[in-house]
């Protein structure tokens, strides 16, 4: 019976290992930092994007926080998870210095006119 419990414990251990391993994604470091939109957003001020190493992020406009989100890196692209359930995918260019954010929430992010915000990194790290 003791052997059986050891086997059960081994299976549980493997599952826990798998869960922990599954929770680790790609490194956020290459994209962590503060970004500013290349052009004024919605005819107002520049939008700012702050991506912290701990996976938290904010989108601010004219000093006002428009959205707080968590973010991860999937397949080399930062994904922003909004609390409302929306997801935005940013496409990095220039080695991650510029992020193109498709605000339509399209899974194949492009840069459609009126729905695309280009951000340039102004400070690295977070």
């Amino acid at each position: 019976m003791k052997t059986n419990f050891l086997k059960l414990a081994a299976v549980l251990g493997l599952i826990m290992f798998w869960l922990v391993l599954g929770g680790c994604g790609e490194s956020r470091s290459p994209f962590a930092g503060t970004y500013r939109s290349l052009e004024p957003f919605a005819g107002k001020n520049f939008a700012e994007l702050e991506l912290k190493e701990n996976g938290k992020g904010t989108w601010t406009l004219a000093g006002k926080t428009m959205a707080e989100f968590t973010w991860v890196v999937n397949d080399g692209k930062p994904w922003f998870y909004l609390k409302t359930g929306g997801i935005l995918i940013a496409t990095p260019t220039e080695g991650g210095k510029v992020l193109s954010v498709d605000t339509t929430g399209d899974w194949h992010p492009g840069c459609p006119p009126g729905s695309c915000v280009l951000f340039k990194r102004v400070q690295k790290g977070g």
Partner: protein
Amino acid sequence: MEDKPKTPSAEETGGLKLCELGQEVVIPAGSRVVSQGETPEFFYVIQSGRLRVFRETADRIQTNLTELGPGAYFGEVALVTGQPRSASVETLTEARLIKVSQVEFDRLLDQNPKLARHIINQLANWLVTGDSRLEKEVVHQVKLRQISWFDYALMVGLSIIFGVVFNLYNDNKIPLIYGWGEKADIREITLSNAEELYKQNQAIFIDARKSAFFDQKHLKGAMNLPLILFDLMYPMFQFTLEQTPGAKDKTTIVYGGSFSRRFDIELARLLKSKGLDKVAVLGDYSGWQKAFPVEERPPKEGASISLGLAGLLEWLPLSIFLLILIPPIRRSPYLAVAGRLLLGAIFISFALSKILRPAVFALNTVDYGMMPSFGVNLWALALPWAELVVGLFLVLGIRTRAAATLIGAMNVIFIVGLVWAILHHLPINCGCVGEVGEPVNWWKVLKNTGMLVMTIQIFLYDRFFVLDRGGFTLRDRTI
């Protein structure tokens, strides 16, 4: 055969020593001395070594009956009854045996009533203990096959409790019941009134759905303001309104096209909270498609992200369609174990990708347009935990029949949803894994059907490596 073997004494055999009969043979370890079903010819007495007595079914499932050592004997049952061998005997170590032919055995019994009585006594004991063993085994099997409502209540209850409690501490928590306690403070506008305003250019139509739905088909001239991106997109929307002459005086009509009314009513509330006075929702949630001119675009290819290991595993259940064509494999408990591990791995993996962000999964559920608004959040909270709990039960072999039933039921729901989405050309991903998952297509339906067949196979034939009411059952059983 008996549990506590004892060599018949010379007195019991009527003064004859067994070693004076028959012939001595040496059998190497791992050899079969007697095979179940064969015609009996000899009676054996063990001088040295150990032997295993077991029964074997047609599909090679072995049940150990006992082990015999020096002094024990076997083979007498078939010689006395004249029936084929009732069990097989195999040497565990090299064994030295005395092999007595049927003629010698019969002569021995005829001439020695004491020995005959001894053997009859042993057979009677064996029958009595056999009955007891049989009863124990039947009880065990009944317990093993038993499914009670408690099993289902346990798994469903655990899933709901885990889902609700985890939600309390989750950064991405969602309300248990969407819209609970909120007042119906948004005016509804009838289709005909909306049509009138549309013709007079006195209304701004806002589509609250995700952009993929909007792109596929929307009311001509409508703007898309997806509810899920409201915080970010509202400044842009406001800017557009400011650029539109006379926009302030127009009625803002929100439509969502969804049975759950999840998007339109909530978006109308948010717009109202931002200071827009004349906000209404379209009363007939899907009527705009026929009443208004629409703009349509061909649906885009469904997006997906790599599912990694889980994505590869998900193809394996398709093999079940071939395996069930081979009868011995179809009934194999080993296949059931493999199926349990596979389904468990798939469901655990899929559950983990959804648990942290219930809001995303809730909206994926809304996309199917099959569930009323009040049930979506509870579903989104409980289902991933149900997948995890039931997946773990399958892997660990706990209440596997009930767990298989629940996984099967989930698969039936998924299949219905997928077929619905395909037939209605919904521009969605399945939402099965995390936020994106796989495209909705017939392959996905087939994979789920494979998993459903697997659950049936587990339900019918699973019996190894299970921890159930009867205790833990390994491959070989000693009764």
